[in-house]
């Protein structure tokens, strides 16, 4: 059984069929890309897997458990982390605190200790800070830990979002356009980082990306979506030459 199994997923908004009969499997250590023109329903797939939207039909199984109707936060605790297309960091918190938030739902001290700094709380807080710092180090942001995220450069904010998602200690991470708005050197950096997530940390990585050179170079397989339908699945080189894919991206030729 694969880590994540999505079977025959459907989701529509009014008359718009955002996802039609989408099926997907992913295992630890795999990087699978999802590409497609704007409005193809890529982010909606993430939102349904992650629990922001409820599926109209279909089954999502994660770690051998049916999570189709679970609440969003439960899915995260079960091991699905994600980043957002439009960066969604917590503005009132520092960079370090943004990452700490990932540990807070599972921090081992009681509500009563939130009002009084007893030894157990102090210990737990220290441990959380240390763990959070290690995640910042992983993405190279340890120097910015006391800054406000909104004051950082765009590329660094993207990294922070990845660090925050990693701090949830996911088994599967959903990256929604992690390279959008980055300069070429930053893109190279991010692609190295994503490879490390799969190779060294053994995460399953689902990747939505518009930069074809990035997705093509690091994905093991690619799924192409268009108007909510899957039009091609396969290795990057096969997908690239698929006539249907070319048509979806460039339109039909006259000849």
């Amino acid at each position, binding site marked *: 059984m694969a880590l994540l199994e999505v079977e025959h997923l459907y989701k529509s908004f009014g008359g718009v069929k955002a996802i039609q009969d989408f099926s997907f499997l992913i295992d630890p250590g795999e990087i699978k890309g999802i590409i497609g023109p704007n409005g193809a329903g890529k982010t909606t797939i993430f939102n349904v897997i*992650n*629990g*922001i939207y409820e599926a109209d039909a279909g089954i999502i199984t994660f770690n051998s458990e049916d999570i189709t109707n679970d*609440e*969003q*936060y439960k899915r*995260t*605790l079960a091991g699905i*982390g*994600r980043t*957002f297309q439009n960066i*969604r*960091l*917590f*503005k*009132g*918190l520092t960079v370090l*605190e943004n990452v*700490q*938030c*990932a*540990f*807070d*739902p*599972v*921090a081992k*001290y009681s*509500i009563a*200790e*939130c*009002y*009084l*700094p007893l030894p157990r*709380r102090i210990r*737990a*807080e220290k441990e*959380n800070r240390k763990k959070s710092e290690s995640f910042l180090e992983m993405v*190279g942001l340890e*120097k*910015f830990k006391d800054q406000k995220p909104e004051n950082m*450069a765009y590329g*660094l904010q993207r990294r922070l979002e990845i660090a*925050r998602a990693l701090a*949830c200690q996911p088994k599967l991470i959903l990256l929604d356009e992690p390279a959008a708005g980055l300069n070429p*050197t*930053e893109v*190279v*950096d991010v692609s*190295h980082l994503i490879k490390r997530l799969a190779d060294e940390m053994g995460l399953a990585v689902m990747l939505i990306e518009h930069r074809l050179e990035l997705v093509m170079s690091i994905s093991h397989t690619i799924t192409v979506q268009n108007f909510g339908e899957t039009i091609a699945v396969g290795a990057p080189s096969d997908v690239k030459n698929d006539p249907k894919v070319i048509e979806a991206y460039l339109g039909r030729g006259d000849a």
Partner: protein
Amino acid sequence: MALINSILTFIFITIISVTGVYILTGLTGMFSLGQASFMALGSYVSAIMVTRLGVPFIPACIIAVVVAVMIGFIVGLPTVRLRRDYISLVTLGFGEAITSLLNQFTKLTGGASGFTGIPKITNVWIAGGSAIACIALAAFFKNSKYGRQCIAVRNDELAAKSMGINAPRVKMVAFLTSVAITAFSGCLYAFFTTYVDPSLFGWKKSAEWIIMVFFGGSNSLTGSILGTFLLSGMPEVMRALAEYRSVVYAVLVLLIINFKPSGLLGEWEFTLRNIKALFHRRKPEDDNDNYSDTSKEIKNDGTIRS
């Protein structure tokens, strides 16, 4: 002297209520227009306990806070799943319902003519001490795991949920904390004025507290307290101006909200570290230098790797 004592006591009691509102509105971003009704609950329950049932003051306060929290839990259950604007509507309705109930149950509460005969127990020292204790509680809460989760939920509930944060639960904890603190301020209030009536606890009172939080800085506990101190102290200082006090009050609030929307203090908190930072303020250029240095490093990294 007696006048100053009484003004200070009133300010301290308001500070306690606003500390509760800060946790709810400043920290978690929930607007409650029925918050004053929890102060009413605190006042009436503790007053009834002491005068009718002969319970000593401190246990009566604890019972009042527990009762308010239990009622708060029932109000909170449907509320915490709602969007911000609806929360204010639900709490507004609840608050007005409480004041009408207090008006109706004449036998128990004295109805519209008020509840009299409460012994005077609260003095400036009790109020001041309680205020410090409540502020400390709120400060510890802000820096705890729940405090961070509250800020996360206020900023972006969707992102918070995808970090594994149980948003309704976090909101409930914040709501009940604020209810407990506000109810406690009601106990102190009743035993200071020795008389309470339902009209004191309408939605205007709740709105006034929210104004105080925003005036001082909704992201800063220090700011909220400073705002309370200024806005509740000012009318007393300007007694000579009579009706014009409200005008000055309104102009002041409008000026702050227009020219400093984040409030007097913004996000600044009164901590040892921030005080030190005030005295050795780093030049902004230093920050910039730091910044470009690291971005260079990253670039170097990238080119080496590629």
